[in-house]
């Protein structure tokens, strides 16, 4: 038996580790598009961008731990096709890698704005190299506009402002992360950003980037207003990297579609941001872009490969750090949920909020109350 993992980031590495933990001793090959050994992405928008960590600190495992996993890492080469019946992956450099089980862990790539390609001063943030390039530009004391009011955009705005820069956050919602955390907490986030000096230009769509001589000069909103900028960071979401699977016969619909065992076809599995699997309890296809999903799903995929398949029914979790606020979200926080403060006090920015739909607890959110939020995770109805 042999396993090929396509993707050398959190989900791919976690699958390899789970296989070894469960006693699998066969061959494993890990194919990664980037040249770097596996590293963690959440610090890129925070500690690495701020310069608090040198980039090497984002490595997921020390070299000794990686080598003890006894896997072959093929890095700096990209999967370009998958022959499903033969379970063979073809790469950009011409390799053909065959295995008994293939795990798709190719993640997502950032969405971009029209006209963004090739424009100097415009950035996305997904990879270590992109974080380094953005940091280099931020060190020139630019005026920064962050386009995107989700988790990543809000974190980048906070980090850049923490570096002392002139920062504007733009996006279509009324407050940062409103669709993820609801109006109450998003309003508190807006207060926090404003108080720390981030200029909020929220509630408007972005029409286009403005540029002169190949370099960005600003962001034009739907209202016609132009936000002047030397550096623009585009954080408007991401899309699953499945183009290399076009024509494979696998079902590609907002991700690689899998059954409840995270199996896309016989011997083909998916893990992490790219996987859209059938959540049995919710009876729906779900794709989660969060860090914990990568490792938890990896355990289920490893079990499935080893013939001990089980349904994957996680309680979703994500966290975000912005200025001195550390938010923890367990479960889901649907629009329209009834929000009750069950611990602490928003006035002192330390609380746990419970989210209910029809009386049923769907999620909890902790603001600088990580432990208390985790304890209340057990209230979340599966």
């Amino acid at each position, binding site marked *: 038996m042999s396993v090929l993992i396509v993707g050398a980031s959190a989900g791919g590495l976690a699958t390899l580790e789970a296989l070894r933990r469960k006693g699998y001793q066969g061959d494993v090959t890990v194919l990664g598009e980037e040249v770097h050994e596996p590293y963690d992405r959440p610090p890129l928008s925070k500690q690495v961008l701020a310069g608090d960590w040198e980039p090497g600190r984002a490595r997921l495992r020390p070299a000794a731990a990686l080598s003890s996993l006894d896997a072959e890492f093929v890095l700096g080469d990209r999967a370009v096709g998958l022959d499903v019946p033969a379970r063979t992956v073809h790469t950009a450099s011409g390799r053909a890698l065959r295995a008994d089980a293939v795990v798709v862990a190719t993640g997502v790539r950032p969405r971009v704005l029209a006209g963004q390609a090739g424009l100097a001063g415009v950035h996305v943030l997904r990879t270590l190299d992109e974080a380094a390039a953005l940091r280099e530009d931020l060190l020139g004391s630019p005026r920064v506009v962050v386009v995107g009011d989700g988790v990543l955009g809000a974190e980048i705005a906070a980090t850049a402002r923490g570096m002392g820069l002139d920062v504007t956050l733009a996006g279509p919602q009324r407050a940062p992360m409103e669709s993820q955390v609801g109006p109450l907490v998003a309003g508190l986030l807006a207060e926090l950003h404003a108080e720390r000096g981030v200029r909020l230009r929220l509630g408007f769509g972005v029409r286009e980037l403005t540029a002169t001589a190949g370099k960005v000069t600003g962001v034009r909103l739907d209202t016609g207003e132009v936000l002047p900028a030397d550096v623009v960071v585009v954080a408007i979401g991401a899309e699953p990297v499945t183009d290399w699977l076009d024509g494979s016969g696998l079902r590609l619909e907002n991700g690689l579609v899998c059954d409840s065992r995270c199996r896309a076809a016989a011997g083909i599995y998916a893990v992490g941001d790219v996987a859209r699997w059938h959540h049995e309890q919710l009876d729906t296809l779900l794709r989660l872009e969060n860090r914990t999903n990568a490792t938890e799903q990896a355990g289920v995929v490893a079990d499935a490969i080893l013939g001990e398949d089980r349904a994957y029914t996680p309680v979703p979790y994500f966290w975000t750090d912005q200025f001195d606020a550390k938010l923890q979200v367990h479960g889901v926080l649907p629009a329209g949920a009834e929000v009750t403060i069950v611990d602490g006090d928003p006035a002192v920015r330390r609380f746990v909020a419970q989210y209910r739909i029809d009386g049923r607890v769907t999620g909890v959110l902790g603001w600088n109350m*990580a432990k208390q939020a*985790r304890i209340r995770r057990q209230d979340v109805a599966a």
Partner: protein
Amino acid sequence: MKIIVDEAKCCGAGTCVLVAPEVFDQRDEDGIVVLLAAEPAEPHHVAVREAAGVCPAAAITLNS
């Protein structure tokens, strides 16, 4: 087995506590990981390995 935690990496998820509550806890004030047993007894090793594997901040390292 010896456990090393990197408090600066810890994000306060508490995943380790959910997996191995006899070995890990969190500080009340900020949720950062607390080691209850830096060299846990053998019966805890399986859970500790899983906790290190699923930590979303890669903050747990094992020497064994």
